[in-house]
């Protein structure tokens, strides 16, 4: 086995790869190695993986149906037989609800990631590359969105579109893109006057090809770092919307919604709000740690010359 591993390693770290794929995998492997050297980032990655696995295997991990009520056992404290994290005001098992809540959180996270950064990247690179009037119009638009407090803007969207988890995601995505546009534009400005972009223009490459194939990949690492660092905020806004009753609707096991309903019992039955609160805390922390680590790995300035 070890000799097979060793030969893989030689193949991956070869100074003269023999195909596009080998070259690309080799770079990815080196990135992975430097991530491995960063224990804090690894902890972050472990937490994020734990979230994903929990979401996937929720039916196996849960001890109860997250929606099943048992009023006889309502507000049992942690350690109660059968309910090791206790129950909420309807006697629903908190552990099972927390486990299923991972699915909702992951769903929100994935939907936001699939929309806001893509939109922000497109706006930012276009503004940065074309400059002039395009830049002015796009960046003032970005400024307008940035000027609103994020939660308030999301609230306004949800109020207009109606409560519900889909609309909450849409509202978050609509408020989350401006920072990505800013990051992408700043990154674009540093590369657009470089000699390699000039060389590509001289080769007759069109603007579309240069922006998507040459500028965007260079902005991507900053954007990915920004996403992971933002993820904590996104989860918190989603939880906040849930807490205010504008996001996920009862009886869905969404962490923010769970805190909201536990608030009433906070002084006597602290666990009802604390369990989902801890879940939000840990997952947010995980994304933040991973983001910091990825910044070290992906930052092209730290790449060896």
């Amino acid at each position: 086995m070890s000799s097979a591993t060793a030969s893989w390693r030689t193949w991956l770290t070869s100074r003269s790869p023999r195909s596009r794929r080998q070259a690309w995998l080799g770079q990815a492997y080196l990135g992975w190695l430097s991530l491995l050297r960063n224990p804090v980032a690894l902890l972050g990655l472990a937490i994020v993986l734990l979230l994903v696995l929990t979401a996937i295997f929720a039916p196996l991990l849960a001890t109860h149906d997250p929606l099943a009520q048992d009023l006889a056992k309502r507000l049992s404290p942690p350690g109660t037989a059968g309910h090791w994290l206790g129950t909420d005001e309807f006697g629903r098992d908190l552990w099972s609800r927390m486990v299923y809540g991972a699915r909702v959180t992951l769903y929100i996270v994935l939907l936001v990631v699939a929309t806001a950064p893509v939109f922000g990247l497109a706006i930012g690179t276009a503004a940065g590359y074309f400059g002039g009037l395009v830049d002015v119009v796009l960046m003032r638009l970005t400024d307008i969105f940035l000027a609103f407090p994020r939660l308030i803007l999301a609230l306004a969207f949800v109020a207009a579109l109606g409560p519900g988890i889909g609309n909450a995601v849409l509202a978050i995505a609509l408020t989350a893109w401006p920072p990505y546009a800013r990051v992408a534009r700043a990154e674009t400005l540093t590369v657009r006057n470089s000699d390699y972009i000039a060389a590509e223009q001289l080769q007759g490459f069109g603007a579309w090809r240069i922006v998507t194939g040459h500028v965007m990949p260079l902005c991507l690492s900053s954007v990915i770092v920004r996403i992971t660092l933002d993820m904590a905020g996104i989860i918190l806004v989603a939880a906040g919307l849930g807490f205010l009753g504008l996001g996920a609707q009862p009886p869905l096991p969404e962490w923010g919604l769970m805190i909201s309903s536990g608030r009433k019992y906070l002084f006597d039955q602290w666990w009802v709000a604390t369990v989902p609160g801890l879940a939000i805390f840990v997952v947010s922390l995980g994304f933040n740690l991973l983001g910091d680590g990825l910044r070290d790995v992906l930052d092209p300035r730290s790449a060896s010359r």
Partner: protein
Amino acid sequence: MALIEIAGLEVVFAARGEAVRAVRGIDLSVEPRESFGLVGESGSGKSTVLRALCGLAPVSAGRALIDGRAPPALGRIGSRDRAFARRVQMVFQDPYGSLHPRHTVDRVLSEPLLVHGLGGRRERDRRVEAALQDVGLDASFRFRYPHQLSGGQRQRVAVARALMLEPSVLLLDEPTSALDASVQAEVLNLLSRLREERGLTFLMVSHDFAVIDHMCDRLAVMQQGRIVEVLDREALARGAVREDYTRALLAASQAHAPVQ
């Protein structure tokens, strides 16, 4: 007819609200297959002339024509003038800044072919391999990233890229000034050989009199956006220099000349 025709060229940049006149009315013509050099100190406008010729700097007044055609406006919108790209290419000064940091050598060399629709996949592969060989790099370099190459190897890749579209004119902007002396010799030899083999026309910029003298048939000395003097190689060898500025430059460059 001259291949490169510059008449009354002026280039004016706006920098912080002030107009900077980088090139102040120059006239120049370069014949096909000629190798012409521009020598000058920093700020003399020599590189700006190259950039104006290929559309990377604005032509504020006068003409800068290659083969009778004005450069396309390369601006941000991108150029549809593919024919121009196949006639004129450029090699830049800084080998660390002129290759995309996230693209392999293979992509750098094959993308121009792809964009210009030259050959199928197999034909492109063949031409990339041939191009590498032409600039003295073996096939093991094909899938490397720029940071895995030395300065000299990068500059070879930059030369190979410039030649992928088989242009007739090569604009060389201080192609060896960032390289060690021994690597400079290799790259200069490479450029000379390629010019010979392909009948290229060179317009080369350098601050180094000896490099220009070695590479070019004629040269112009530039100072503060103007041409001070045009000399041919023979006149230079005889020391038939008219202007004091040229003489001062020549004398100063002696400090770097090999000890005889």
